[in-house]
């Protein structure tokens, strides 16, 4: 085990996998000399050279398309988006091309493409640089969607992504980059997609949380222990594929569930997860499944306004008590 920051965990896995597989190359905005504005590719240029670590023009659709083409032609591109919000600039290449090509070609093409970058609140970047876009990509079949919440998960999920043969949306969070944690040193440490992490066991209520909300949910769950409420906290780790079994088994045990994320509540990941619970475990439920997510409002610039839009720890606590009728 080594203690390292989330951003370093990402950089280390990129380097290790690039040493292992010479088809892997990385391209994106300011990722070479600069090492990315969050440092996730720092040092890679020196080791792997400018051919495999490429600064791109600010042409998200263009270089995303080049990633799609290079993947089709046998390479394993990693395309870094400086902000995952920019995926919308490249939306056609991701949603119409990368996601659909294998299917449209009758299974005769393979498209190993990792699209990664950070998103989310916390740095006063306002609506076009602070939103959470994963629901858009969950909606279009053909993509896998990963959301690591810890340095170890970032390492294990990224290595799985880099060894997968599908297009993958890999959502990091800007507020998690400096968070440190223990990461296994094993160069083959992988976390399979579709395997949720039961972060904390409990019998009273199931909290399903993603990305930086896993930590917040855990804080609330630990606090509630002193009040005699034992919450189970589950991090799905990947939204596509989704580990329905772990979530449903938990809800069968607890009879109550809340889903919390930073993405908008309306048509957000929580809507999907709540529906799955209702379809698979309705008769076990003792309370309606609650969803917590950003309000239906563009993410504001001002910190006070931003906090007013996204769920706070008190909101999670209230929701837990609400489903327990307390």
């Amino acid at each position, binding site marked *: 085990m080594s203690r390292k920051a989330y951003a370093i965990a990402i950089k280390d896995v990129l380097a290790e996998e690039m040493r292992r597989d010479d088809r892997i*190359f990385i391209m994106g905005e300011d990722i070479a000399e600069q090492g990315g504005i969050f440092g996730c590719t720092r040092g890679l240029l020196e080791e792997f050279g400018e*051919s*495999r670590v*490429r600064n*791109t*023009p600010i*042409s998200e*659709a*263009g*270089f*995303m*398309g*080049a*990633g*799609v*083409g*290079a*993947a*089709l*032609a*046998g*390479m394993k*591109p990693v395309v870094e988006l400086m902000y995952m919000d920019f995926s919308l600039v490249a939306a*056609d*290449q991701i949603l*119409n*091309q990368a996601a659909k*090509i*294998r*299917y*449209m*070609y*009758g*299974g*005769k*093409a*393979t*498209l*190993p493409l990792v699209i990664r970058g950070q998103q989310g609140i916390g740095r006063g970047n306002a609506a076009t640089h602070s939103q959470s876009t994963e629901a858009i990509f969950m909606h279009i*079949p*053909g993509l*896998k969607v990963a959301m690591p919440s810890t340095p170890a998960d970032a390492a294990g999920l990224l290595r799985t992504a880099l*060894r*997968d*043969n*599908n297009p993958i949306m890999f959502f990091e969070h800007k507020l998690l980059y400096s968070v440190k944690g223990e990461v296994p040193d094993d160069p083959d440490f992988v976390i399979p997609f579709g395997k949720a992490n039961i972060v904390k066991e409990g019998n009273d209520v199931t909290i399903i949380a993603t990305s930086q909300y896993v930590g917040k949910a855990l804080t609330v769950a630990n606090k509630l222990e002193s009040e005699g409420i034992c919450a189970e906290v589950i991090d799905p780790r990947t939204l596509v594929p989704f580990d329905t079994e772990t979530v449903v088994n938990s809800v069968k045990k607890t009879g109550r569930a809340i889903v919390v994320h930073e993405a908008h509540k309306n048509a957000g990941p929580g809507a999907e997860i709540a529906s799955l619970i209702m379809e698979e475990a309705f008769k076990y439920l003792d309370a309606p499944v609650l969803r917590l997510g950003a309000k239906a409002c563009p993410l504001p610039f001002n910190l006070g306004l931003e906090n007013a839009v996204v769920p706070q720890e008190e909101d999670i606590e209230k929701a837990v008590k609400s489903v327990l009728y307390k």
Partner: protein
Amino acid sequence: MEKERLIWIYRKMHEIRKFEERALQLFEKDKLRGSVHLYIGEEAIAATVCSLLRDSDYITSTHRGHGHCIAKGAELAPALAELMGKSTGYCQGRGGSMHIADVTKGNLGANAIVGAGVPIAAGGALAAQLRGSDQVSVTFFGDGASNEGVVHEAMNLASVWKLPVIFICENNEFGISTPVKQSTSVKDISVRSAAYDMPGYTVDGNDVFAIDEVVSKAIERAKDGQGPTFIECKTYRWLGHWTGDPQIYRTKEEVEAWKEKCPIKRLENYLIENKISTEEELKKIEADVLVAVDEAEKFALESPEPDPSKALEYVYFEN
């Protein structure tokens, strides 16, 4: 150009023409559904360009893609079967007319989103560059696509990275129903190449020799590591944008005048006049192609439908 390649081009042009004429007939008999965008009148471009490519070279194509796919090695039977959505089609009925691909032959795919194949071809070229191979990548797109932002992004990227890619802009005068002069700021689209510091040419897209000359140069340049070339081929779409197009945007006289410039007839005349081939030899080629199209039709009609219980197959690569 040596006789063998000229005859290959001649045959491919007939394959494309007769394949599409048959596709149109099948559409009119309700044997085909969806959209069928026909390339008739533009065959010289696909056939000549692809006569210069190897299986290992890449292309990307368009919604009007049958010609490019056939010229890049697609067999007529599975291609026609795909147009009919059959299980024996190139995409097993998942893709249809606008998504025929065969990566093993370097065809990275037809593409129903205008301009979207262009950066994908740049990506094929990038893969070649990263591997240090001498593969080249050709992207076919229309005058309409030349106004898509992503095409310009790909041109810039290809030029900055000196990618071995050749931009083939087929200017067939119309983006659906809109004449090119209403949609496009320049008379010759190739002048846009100057903005990306790459050579640009405008040639007669119905002239096999004119196309051959500039594409040969472009391939040499690409293989030499000098980067991309932009080639505009001026041609004309004989038929409507799609099979049901009322074509109110042009006159019958205009269409007839272009039919007089038929690229197949033009090559045929050249081959006979210059005694490279005989009328008899060429008629035999045409007849052989017709037999191949008949066989493709029979194959497609007799092929089974895909199994609906397998509709979800191929969404993901199963690791």
